């Protein structure tokens, strides 16, 4: 009985490992095919500011926010349409952009920024 349980567990673990590996490689190919020319623009959060405060991107580009401060920040769309989770030091948040938006940090509402999509 004991042996049966162990074998079952080993099999399940093996299966899980296989599926997650497959998922990952699938995802990689899909992203590569779907957005071949898309760029990633980086916005650093430092000294209680989004830097640069305004970025211009092409439709389909990704903006990467990275928190370089000692305090936690987040990225929240102006009208709270969406928000990142709270980002402690060195944590990142990525968003694929199709339309322009204004954003702020809901923890520090004085901090504001803008992403412009060039036509």
């Amino acid at each position, binding site marked *: 009985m004991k042996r049966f349980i162990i074998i079952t567990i080993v099999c399940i673990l093996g299966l899980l490992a296989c599926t997650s590996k497959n998922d990952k490689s699938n995802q990689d190919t899909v992203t590569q095919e779907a957005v071949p020319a898309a760029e990633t623009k980086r916005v650093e959060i430092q*000294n*209680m*500011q989004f830097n640069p405060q305004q970025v211009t991107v092409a439709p389909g580009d990704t903006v990467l926010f990275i928190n370089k401060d*000692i*305090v936690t920040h987040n990225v929240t769309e102006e009208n709270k349409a969406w928000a990142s989770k709270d980002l402690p030091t060195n944590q990142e948040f990525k968003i694929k952009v199709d339309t322009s938006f204004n954003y702020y940090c*809901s*923890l*520090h*509402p*004085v901090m504001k920024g803008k992403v412009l999509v060039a036509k």
Partner: protein
Amino acid sequence: MIFFVTFLAITYSNNKLKYKTMKKLKNQGFIQFVLLLSALLFYGLESKAQKSTTLTDPEIASVAVTANQIDIDYANIALLRSKNAEVLNFAHTMANDHKAIIDQAVALVTKLGVTPKTNAVTKSLLDGEKTTIKKLKAKKGVAFDKAYISNEVAYHKAVIGAVETLLIPQAKNAELKALLVKVMPALKEHLAHAEMLNKSINK
């Protein structure tokens, strides 16, 4: 008869006016008190530091940790008493940010092998805290929110003044000085945030 009605109307509006003025005066009195308190606190920090000429690095570390802890204490009172979502959000941020600053300070002094040393400035900060906590705990509801936020404005102004004019210039260790410089933008953002809320809750 017409005269009587007019007389009544005038008396009524006068009383209303009086009541409004009294309320306004009361508010002004409180604001003056807070300003005085912050001036005293700042003055206390300055004169004490000048008397003893310089603060040593262990003393600066003690002042820095104490000043941050005091704002966490205020935030914890607000988290228990306020019902205003924006005030609660602000208090959460204060508690988290000042904790992060303390963690940095503790990590640095541990690395440097420095033990924070209690001093006259630390003591005057703690005395100020006692008085403020008494005032805050005597208030409820919107009156509490107003008292908490206007104290946050005054307190951050006083701390920014102390860090800029005393702690940074007097810190000897370069890393300690750098850490004090690094926390300035957060203190200034907190002040701007508090000023923003001060406006919105006093509308």
